[in-house]
């Protein structure tokens, strides 16, 4: 009996499809707010990419975009877990607010972006940072154009009201290391944040940063060269490498 091989590739446990399935699992957990579970699904997906074999250019492109998406989500999950740890330990309120702000910059799906902005808004309002809170209220309203609030007609008017309330107060109690303009200018968290310390990179030129060879997470060179990437947990940072070879040659199509 002959075994039909998928596109001439021998049976392998990982494929672009299995990676996608893990991503979907992770996204579901994110929606439910189970961030630790989501993080382990995303990391599993990212690691399995290192053991992949593809035959077509289109699959290779798909895998590359999967890596990008995974890095954004993994960083978001790590920020959220770090923030919860700090707030459970009654840590530095400024840092907690900064983490909440920075998390809104992760390139996630609009539904998740809304949840993150909502929690950042609530936190900032509670801590008296009304100017930054107003910024996020406006950002939430601007998500309307993507159809994020279908079936929830009361959200937009509600946040318009919050925006006006914040505008009337018009003060910031805490000095945050977060520039509201970044919400427009920064589309990906990679290269904005050091993936190790989860704080903003002072200088994101390639001279002073190191990049993970698998996932492309960016770290500051001074503190993280030689350590293991915290996004994928596999690669040594700053070591010379040739890049992953997952494209198979000589496959009959």
């Amino acid at each position, binding site marked *: 009996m002959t075994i039909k091989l998928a596109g001439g590739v021998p049976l392998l446990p*990982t494929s672009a499809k299995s990676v996608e399935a893990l991503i979907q699992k992770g996204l579901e957990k994110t929606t439910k707010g189970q961030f630790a579970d989501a993080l382990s699904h995303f990391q599993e997906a990212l690691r399995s990419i290192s053991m992949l074999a593809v035959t077509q250019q289109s699959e290779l492109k798909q895998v590359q975009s999967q890596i990008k998406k995974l890095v954004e989500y993994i960083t978001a999950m790590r920020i959220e877990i770090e923030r919860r740890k700090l707030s459970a330990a009654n840590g530095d309120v400024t840092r907690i607010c900064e983490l909440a702000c920075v998390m809104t910059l992760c390139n996630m799906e609009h539904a998740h972006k809304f949840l993150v902005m909502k929690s950042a808004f609530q936190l900032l309002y509670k801590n008296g940072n009304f100017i930054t809170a107003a910024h996020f209220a406006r950002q939430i309203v601007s998500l309307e154009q993507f159809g994020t609030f279908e079936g929830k007609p009361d959200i937009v008017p509600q946040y318009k009201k919050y925006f006006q309330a914040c505008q009337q107060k018009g003060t910031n109690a805490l000095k945050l290391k977060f520039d509201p303009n970044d919400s427009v200018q920064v589309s990906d968290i990679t290269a904005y944040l050091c993936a190790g310390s989860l704080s903003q990179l002072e200088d994101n030129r390639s001279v002073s940063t190191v990049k993970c060879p698998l996932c492309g997470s960016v770290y500051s060179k001074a503190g993280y060269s030689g350590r293991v990437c915290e996004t994928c947990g*596999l690669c040594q*940072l700053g070591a010379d490498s040739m890049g992953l070879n*997952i494209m198979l040659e000589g496959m009959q199509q």
Partner: protein
Amino acid sequence: MMDSDIFVPPSAGVDPLQNVLRQNPQNAALQAAAGDFRKAAELLKSQLAVSNFAHLKQLFVDAYTLNKVKI
């Protein structure tokens, strides 16, 4: 008497994995599937500078065992 009563077994076919592997010796997943974990680990080390293989152990074993499955 005809020689048809002597059973001649058919010659073994080409193992598809070995076939692909010969053309793609640089793919870590194929090396692990063929059971050469050492070579797979070396490839990952040179391609991605992987230094922590603990997370990949299960993936290596899965790749190897899946290729031993007979259908």
